[in-house]
């Protein structure tokens, strides 16, 4: 094939799929314990293809940017059509806007086909995700070959694995909301299969189902969002095309020109502006066509529904409950799917939909609030968990919350920061999970941190790499996490600054000068006109809100600024907690007295090379990736962000008017480092020292003193006091025992009543809340699952007794009538004659009188 991009785009998902199918067919009989070779080879090839694709794309981008050939000046994308999935012509008649505005015909109005082509796209965002996914997948595949060795379902694992990589690569490279939804669910299916991989474990099977269902709730929102996009924009494609399916940009330009000139073009040649296509983005035409007044509501609704979908997939509050349970799956799966790739699909989707969110500031606020809140909540829960993988799972939820926080800022700085955090997080979280897997492997699948400890000498490689991962997660300079977390917090900080009134600086979170107006931080950006984006942002307080977009919630800028300010503080707080719980887990596992559970048996040693080598590679990446990609501290250039700005969904004019990435916030960096070090320090103090202090602190947060205070048994002990005995004897002597009992009983009652609230407090003590994950699972069980099951039983009862009863009753009516009629059949000849005569009489009367 002479079109390398097409070939690569097909190869990247096709290779893992082919591997999956082959393993599925040959696995049980032929490949067996050799199944991994096929998977590794395919995924590795896929990774190489992704790199090639990135290279091809960057050439093309540079050529386009240099020649100024990008037609409408926004982004660069390559789309390739494979085949037509569905095509329902004239499916939707969108109300036409008044004639005269010829542009409107491109983006709204007229007859719309429901045409879904299987179209693959290559742009910066996709390439970034592809490289990340395939790289991590390759490493995890190699790791799994060691980790899963000897499992009876070995081939099955790699078949699922290939299927997942296929789905995930398709997810990021499709160019259509329907197909996005398709692979959105497909990765969910792979997740379901892999969580329930050890299906004999009831917990694993239940966790798989739970993951699928919670995701379905999210998908419910996603689907509604997609429907709303369809009715609003009349297309579900990301890209521009012609109605006949033509994708060639030149042809589209030609058609647009013809349309603008008022020529009558055949239906095949009519241009269709994709949701994120240059035609629409050039003028920020995401205002729904034809319904200007409802546009704000609809935009908000679309965004919130998409957000619900993202919350499901990316495990954000309130749909985060499935991710910790998903740790029942094999650890490589947790590393790949539930830390690095699949759970970031929500982030990817929101980043992809940036143009939609940009016209709805309220939705952005919600994204940020959800993200910030989840980050804090998950971090709080992670503080007290003893299951090593669950700590990491909550950490993942928390970090995903960070990403949402950044995405919700609504500036390019925020979006790129979120994606950057996604990128770095993939490395160090995969590293941590694989490290945890290594520990599990050695400890004979024991994962409770209380049952092992001091492993640093037993597993030195794991120890070192895990330490690197922990430092990166905690955000310690100069590891990857530091840079991305700084970018996130910096973006939020900028937002606060942007929203606050200029004359009063009193709310400022920290002394922070105006943004350094460096030279245009994006030389390679396709927009020559966008220099000094930062300046513009300061000058235009409402830069992210377009003129005809009215915020639905009606919050003032001041209030929104304050909310973002709180979110910023929350982020800092979370980074403290992150550092604390990360190192708590680290110390509990690798430090302290050496403790090895009996299940470990002969396995208690360092893992094989197939597992340690990926760990090493990931550790190196975690350490260096931030330093290499984010050079904002040097010259304000974040190569990662600049690369991303080539994405059509990001680098379009309206977005370019927001705060651009590239600033390095020394103060923010300072604060966050301080927080991280504080967290590390505290946990070092607590967990490297004696365990007694830990116990004390836990008792304190558990409100143990309350329990001691209101314990009924303490009253029982009081009976043994000498004074008490004396009083009792005295009263017995004077025969007033009953009075004594009365008084003591009354006292006891009063004390109990008074301490009831305290008891309640005891049961929701901070420690217990955190340990029991804020009782959210129980709450869902109580509020959703049980009522629904009850309703189900009620419905069944109604069905059996009421509805079927009615049916049976109706069925009995003819028999009842028949019983009545039977009595007429009495066998008397004169009676029959009489009946006949009466009938005749009626006929006669009708005939003669009628």
């Amino acid at each position, binding site marked *: 094939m002479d079109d390398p991009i097409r070939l690569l785009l097909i190869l990247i998902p096709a290779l893992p799929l082919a591997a999956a199918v082959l393993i599925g067919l040959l696995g049980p009989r032929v490949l067996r314990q050799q199944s991994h070779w096929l998977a590794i080879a395919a995924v590795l090839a896929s990774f190489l293809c992704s790199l090639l694709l990135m290279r091809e794309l960057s050439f093309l981008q540079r050529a386009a940017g240099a020649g100024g050939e990008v037609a409408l000046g926004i982004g660069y994308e390559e789309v390739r059509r494979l*085949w*037509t*999935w*569905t*095509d*329902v*012509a004239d*499916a*939707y*008649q969108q109300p036409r806007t008044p004639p005269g505005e010829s542009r409107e015909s491109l983006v709204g109005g007229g007859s719309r086909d*429901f045409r879904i082509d299987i179209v693959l796209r290559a742009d910066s965002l996709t390439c970034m995700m592809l490289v990340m996914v395939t790289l991590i997948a390759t490493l995890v595949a190699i790791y799994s070959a060691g980790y899963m060795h000897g499992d009876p379902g070995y081939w099955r694992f790699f078949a699922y694995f290939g299927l997942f990589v296929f789905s995930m690569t398709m997810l990021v490279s499709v160019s259509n909301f*329907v197909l996005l*939804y*398709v*692979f*959105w*669910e*497909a990765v969910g299916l792979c997740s*379901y299969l892999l969580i*329930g991989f050890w*299906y*004999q*474990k*009831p917990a*694993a*099977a*239940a966790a*798989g*189902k739970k993951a*699928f*269902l919670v995701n*379905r*709730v999210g*998908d*419910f929102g996603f*689907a*509604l969002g997609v*429907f*709303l996009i*369809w*009715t609003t924009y009349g297309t579900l494609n990301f890209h521009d095309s012609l109605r006949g399916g033509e994708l060639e940009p030149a042809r589209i330009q030609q058609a647009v020109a013809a349309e603008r000139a008022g020529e009558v073009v055949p239906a095949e040649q009519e241009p269709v502006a994709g949701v994120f296509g240059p035609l629409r983005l050039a003028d920020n035409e995401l205002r729904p066509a034809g319904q200007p*007044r*409802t546009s*704000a*509501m*609809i935009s908000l609704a679309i965004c919130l529904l998409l957000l619900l979908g993202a919350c499901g997939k990316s495990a954000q509050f309130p749909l985060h409950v499935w991710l910790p349970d998903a740790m029942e799956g094999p650890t490589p799966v947790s590393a790949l799917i539930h830390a690095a790739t699949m759970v970031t699909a929500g982030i990817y989707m929101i980043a992809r939909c940036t143009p939609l969110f940009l016209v709805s500031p309220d939705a952005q606020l919600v994204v940020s609030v959800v993200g910030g809140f989840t980050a804090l909540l998950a971090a709080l829960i992670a503080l007290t968990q003893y299951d090593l993988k669950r700590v990491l799972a909550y950490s993942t939820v928390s970090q995903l919350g960070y990403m949402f926080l950044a995405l919700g800022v609504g500036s390019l700085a925020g979006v790129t920061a979120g994606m950057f955090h996604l990128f770095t997080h993939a490395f160090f979280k995969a590293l941590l999970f694989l490290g945890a897997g290594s520990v599990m492997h050695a400890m004979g699948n024991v994962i409770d941190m209380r049952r092992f400890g001091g492993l640093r000498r037993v597993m030195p490689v794991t120890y070192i790499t895990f330490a690197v991962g922990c430092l990166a997660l905690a955000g310690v300079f100069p590891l990857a996490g530091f840079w991305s977390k700084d970018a996130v917090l910096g973006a939020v900080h900028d937002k606060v600054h942007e929203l606050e009134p200029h004359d009063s600086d009193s709310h400022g979170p920290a002394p922070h000068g105006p943004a350094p107006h460096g030279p245009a931080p994006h030389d390679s950006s396709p927009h020559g006109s966008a220099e000094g984006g930062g300046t513009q942002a300061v000058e235009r307080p409402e830069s992210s809100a377009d003129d005809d977009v009215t915020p*639905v919630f*009606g919050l003032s800028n001041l209030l929104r600024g304050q909310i973002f300010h709180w979110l910023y503080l929350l982020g800092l707080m979370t980074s403290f907690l992150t550092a604390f719980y990360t190192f708590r887990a680290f110390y509990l596992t690798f430090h302290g007295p050496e403790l090895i559970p009996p299940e470990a048996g002969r396995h208690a040693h360092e893992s094989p090379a197939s597992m340690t080598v990926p760990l090493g590679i990931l550790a190196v990446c975690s350490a260096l990736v931030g330093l290499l990609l984010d050079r904002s501290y040097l010259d304000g250039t974040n190569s990662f962000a600049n690369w991303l700005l080539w994405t059509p969904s990001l680098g379009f004019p309206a977005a370019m008017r927001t705060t651009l990435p590239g600033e390095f916030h020394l103060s923010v960096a300072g604060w966050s480092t301080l927080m991280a070090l504080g967290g590390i320090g505290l946990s070092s103090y607590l967990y490297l020292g004696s365990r007694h202090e830990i116990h004390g602190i836990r008792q304190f947060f558990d409100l143990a003193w309350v329990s001691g205070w209101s314990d009924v048994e303490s009253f029982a002990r009081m009976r043994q006091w000498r004074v008490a005995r004396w009083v009792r004897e005295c009263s017995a002597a004077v025969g007033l025992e009953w009075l004594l009992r009365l008084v003591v009983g009354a006292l006891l009652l009063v004390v109990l009543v008074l301490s009831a609230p305290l008891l309640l407090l005891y049961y929701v003590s901070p420690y217990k809340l955190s340990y029991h994950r804020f009782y959210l699972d129980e709450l869902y069980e109580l509020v959703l699952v049980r009522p*629904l*099951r009850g*309703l*189900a039983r009620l*419905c*069944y009862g109604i*069905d059996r007794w009421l*509805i*079927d009863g*009615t*049916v049976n009753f109706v*069925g009995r009516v003819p028999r009842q009538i028949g019983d009545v009629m039977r009595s007429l059949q009495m066998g008397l000849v004169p009676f029959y004659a009489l009946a006949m005569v009466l009938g005749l009489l009626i006929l006669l009367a009708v005939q003669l009188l009628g």
Partner: protein
Amino acid sequence: MDTATLLLVTILLPLAGAVALWPVAALGTRAVRWTALAVTLATLLLTVLVIWDFYPDHVASTEREWTWLGAGEQIQFGIGLDGISVWLFALSALLMVTAVLVSWEAIDDQVPQFYALLLLLECGCLGVFAARDLIMFYVFFEFTLIPLYFLIGIWGSEDRKYAASKFFLFTLAGSLLTFLGLLSIVWWKAAYVAGGELTFSIAELAAAVQQAAGTPRAMSPGFQAVLFAALFAGFAIKVPLFPLHTWLPLAHVQAPTAGSVFLAGILLKLGSYGFVRFCLPLLPDATYLFAPWILWIAVIGILYGALIALAQHDLKRLIAYSSVSHLGYCLLGVFALNPLGLQGGTLQMVNHGLSTGGLFALVGMLYERYHTRDIQQLSGLARQVPRLAFFMLVFTLSSIGLPGLNGFVGEFLVLLAMFQRAWQEPLPGWGLHLKAISVLAVFGVVLGAWYMLWLVQRVFFGPLKHPSGGHDGAPPRDLAPREILALAPLAVVMVWIGVAPNFFLRPMDGPLREVEAAVARPLQEGLQNREPVAEKRPQTGLENLTRAR
């Protein structure tokens, strides 16, 4: 042989096979089974040939009519396929192979009679979908009842007689009304359009309705409403719609596996097919008027069926209630009255036939092995029967609408169409209703995933448990090649529809567009009527909110 003759042969072949079983029965049950299989396979092959002929121009090129009854050219033995019926026709032929294969060992008394009835059933179903004439449609429509009645009544489980009578009476009661309604339309045509000339051709009737639309000779809305109610009675019971569904779980639970497969796969489609074929094109105004109500009923059925399925312990009953839920989607699509919905709804009929038919076949296989259908007695079977578990998972995923398999395509199109309809609803006051309906329908998908996955989790995952009172103590064997042969074609078609649905949607486009054109007129009128109103009152709930603010 031209296509029409081929089609005729296809329809009559099972009938001939049923007759042929008479002499074959003397050779023993083995011979009977193989003969039945050969006949069904031959029918399937012929069906493929017919579709092969039919597909390239995907028009009803296969139509042909022979005078059948009556003086003059009135009642015709008219057969032909179009895009609406072709896939259901093919599905009948396909599912019958499955039905024959799943009864291979399950049925061992009165075998010749059993297979003869199965073949008769197939003939009836093929005939219904190929009928081009109203009387012929009705005759085949009723003809399908009889074999199934005996299949349930003779080879069913313990409560079979009650179930068979209930099924028979229920459906018969409705379809008699339907017949009256259909005859009334014929009468209207003769009295008002054709000048006294009777015609029973469906196409001519539809054309007459179209032609009379808007003129004084058109049926008045009141008349249409009454006829619609009559037609609705039969079709809604067949579908079955929400309050009329109670015969279905009973019949499914009691029926032999092959009966369940065919009942779920084909016979339930006769109702929704009838809606598309008759209600929409022949009674457009009434359809348009009643559509919101039927949509409500459909969505209530979706949620209600799903909830009840959640409370079931009997595998068959669970799947039966899931049918109630899934068929709600078909109707949702059909009564969304736009091209997307019609195509989605029609495709969903095929999808449901594949997935639910397959699920019933699997339950039958499970029952053969473990002699129970009680979910609580089974657990962790994936270890003993991994292939069965694999197929179960595939069919389950198809049933809950997982992308990449067939269920998703239909469901997505239907829901999208519903949403689009809600957005454009011209009937005053119905906009919010329809929006609520579409949201609830989407929520039904969540419930659907819940009960199906819970079923799989309980039966196939977890620690191994099954009633140890099996026959000989030996662990049940996994699927035999014969059983895989019964299931694999269904799975293949599922993937095919899921990956390239356009292949299946393309032929539907033409005929469904005609149907849509018939109902589009009242819709367009409604839209035009809405325009002046829109100035004064808010159109949508969202806008309401905006204005209130």
